[in-house]
């Protein structure tokens, strides 16, 4: 079969220079607003104490120093609970929660995307509905449930609800829908069971989607679920680094340097993960559309 390609002269809508100017001015303005506070964090993390206390302050650091990072180390090593404990707690919650979410949500997303079974439509409708209210609505009742299950004041109080987050399932299901049926049929003929198909064929194909789930889930849990963590965990030795850093900031102006150094360190991890997986994330989000 021959394909006849008729090439039309490429015609693009004219872009007026006035429009360009307006849009770029807007972009620059918003870009400044978005970047300024983070630049401020970086700049202050390297400021020596005399520059922090200077009036009027300089936006950019003049004589950069690593002192704030050393001070941070000393402040943290003086704490009642060893700092490694806080760091361990943070990593434990973020990694276990993220891994659990990615595996369990993908396992549920596969049948929802590619198989027919009674109850499928209603289950997915409920998942979409749940995107329409935030976790804050369920926090109080979850407190009761978690206390009844005996999960209160353990890391599981933050991890388990995060595994059941609905955004991840939704994105994964939408992405899996574009897997060609032929690929799955071939595996079925070879005698693969559903679970084998899911693990050896589907999961490698949807790598962009699980990278996306990783970044979203990790980002939520890295701050240890924010309010959720503060609400469900009260033992000092179970708290996360986020909490320890919050205590440093309480020290007022003199602690600005170390606390900005800490904020900078906390920032780098999710940003690094995002930089490495950006194209996968964008690829996944291109299937995120919601049909009405």
């Amino acid at each position, binding site marked *: 079969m021959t394909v006849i390609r008729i090439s039309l002269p490429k015609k693009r809508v004219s872009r007026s220079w006035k429009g360009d100017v307006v849009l770029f001015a807007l972009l620059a303005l918003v870009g400044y607003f978005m970047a300024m506070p983070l630049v401020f964090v970086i700049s202050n993390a390297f400021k020596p104490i005399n520059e922090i206390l200077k009036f009027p302050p300089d936006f950019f650091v003049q004589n950069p120093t690593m002192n704030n990072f050393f001070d941070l180390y000393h402040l943290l090593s003086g704490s009642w609970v060893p700092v490694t404990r806080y760091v361990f707690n943070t990593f434990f919650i973020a990694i276990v929660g993220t891994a659990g979410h990615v595996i369990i949500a993908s396992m549920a997303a596969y049948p929802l995307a590619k198989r027919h079974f009674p109850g499928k439509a209603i*289950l997915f409708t409920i998942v979409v509905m749940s995107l329409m209210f935030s976790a804050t*609505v369920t926090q109080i009742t979850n407190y009761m449930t978690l206390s009844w299950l005996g999960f209160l004041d353990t890391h599981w109080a933050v991890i388990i609800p995060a595994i059941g987050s609905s955004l991840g399932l939704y994105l994964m299901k939408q992405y899996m829908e574009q897997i060609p049926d032929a690929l799955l049929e071939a595996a079925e003929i070879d005698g693969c069971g559903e679970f084998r198909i899911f693990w050896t064929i589907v999961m490698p194909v949807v790598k962009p989607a699980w990278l996306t789930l990783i970044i979203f889930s990790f980002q939520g849990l890295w701050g240890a679920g924010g309010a959720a963590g503060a609400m469900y965990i009260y033992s000092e030795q179970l708290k996360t680094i986020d909490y320890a850093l919050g205590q440093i900031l309480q020290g007022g102006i003199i602690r600005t340097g170390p606390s900005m150094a800490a904020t900078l360190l906390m920032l780098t991890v999710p940003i690094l993960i995002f930089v490495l997986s950006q194209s996968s*994330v964008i690829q996944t989000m291109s299937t995120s559309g919601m049909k009405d």
Partner: protein
Amino acid sequence: MIQLVRKTRTALGSGKPRLKMNLTLKEMKRKKVIYAMIAPYFLIFFAFTVLPVCLSLLVSFTNFNMLEFPKWVGWRNYAQLFVRDDVFLIALKNTLIFAAITGPVSYIACFVLAWVINEFPPKLRAIATLVFYAPALSGSAFIVWTLLFSSDSYGYINAFLLKWHLIMEPILWLKTPKYIMPIIIIVQLWLSLGTSFLAFIAGLQSMDKTLLEAGAIDGIRNRWQELWFITLPSMRPMLMFGAVIQITASFAVAEVATALAGFPSVKYAGHTIVTHLMDYGSIRFEMGYASAIATVLFAMMLGSNLIVRKLLAKVGE
């Protein structure tokens, strides 16, 4: 989706109901592997997302302190909420103002920025994406705003206003009711270029470019017409998804408010429904009352989402 539900319903409706039931049961038995695969997720999902909504509706009609058995009180919690609880009415007003401003502004910003950077070369686009998305990604880094708006002369904004002689003495930004709300809105907007922003970028990237060429031939004159008649309608599923995410987030303002303005804030200027909920749920342990607040919040979020979905269906018509 709703159509699908309807379809299965009509399919179930035909034939004898019992026979249909048996068939469904048989099919379910045959596909038990599938149910085993979705079970772990949906067990957690139902326990921590669906059940809590139903349960909090139920508990909202009781008086419950987690120690004694709940007492049924009927509509009393709701009546108290809307008639006697002045602080709740402040929280309600604040939440509605936050939602009415941050919701639409952040939604439009997400789209416009995604649309502008869409024509950039890939490298530049990746950098721009990172710059705009970084605040949403950085979690608790919004704490830096407390330094910018710090009430002494070390506060960056105070220092500059003093230096330029615009003010004579430092302003207590986060302790003055009239400034609290605008500051929280600013920070909330700073954090709001999140998931929907990425969805819009992806949507614009994967758009069928031939549509634009066809449009140019059909007499689309400028980029604004192109936006309204071609780009927006073909992005409708993304717009739906983005709206859901932004609306839900815009009603849930709490963490930023408590971190910046304190809890409770001066004259409750930064008090929202969520902070009110935290107050009764995790400090006073009046679970019945807290559940009533949660139910009101749930109704507001779901209601506005459904209304906006109806409106978005009209885009480009």
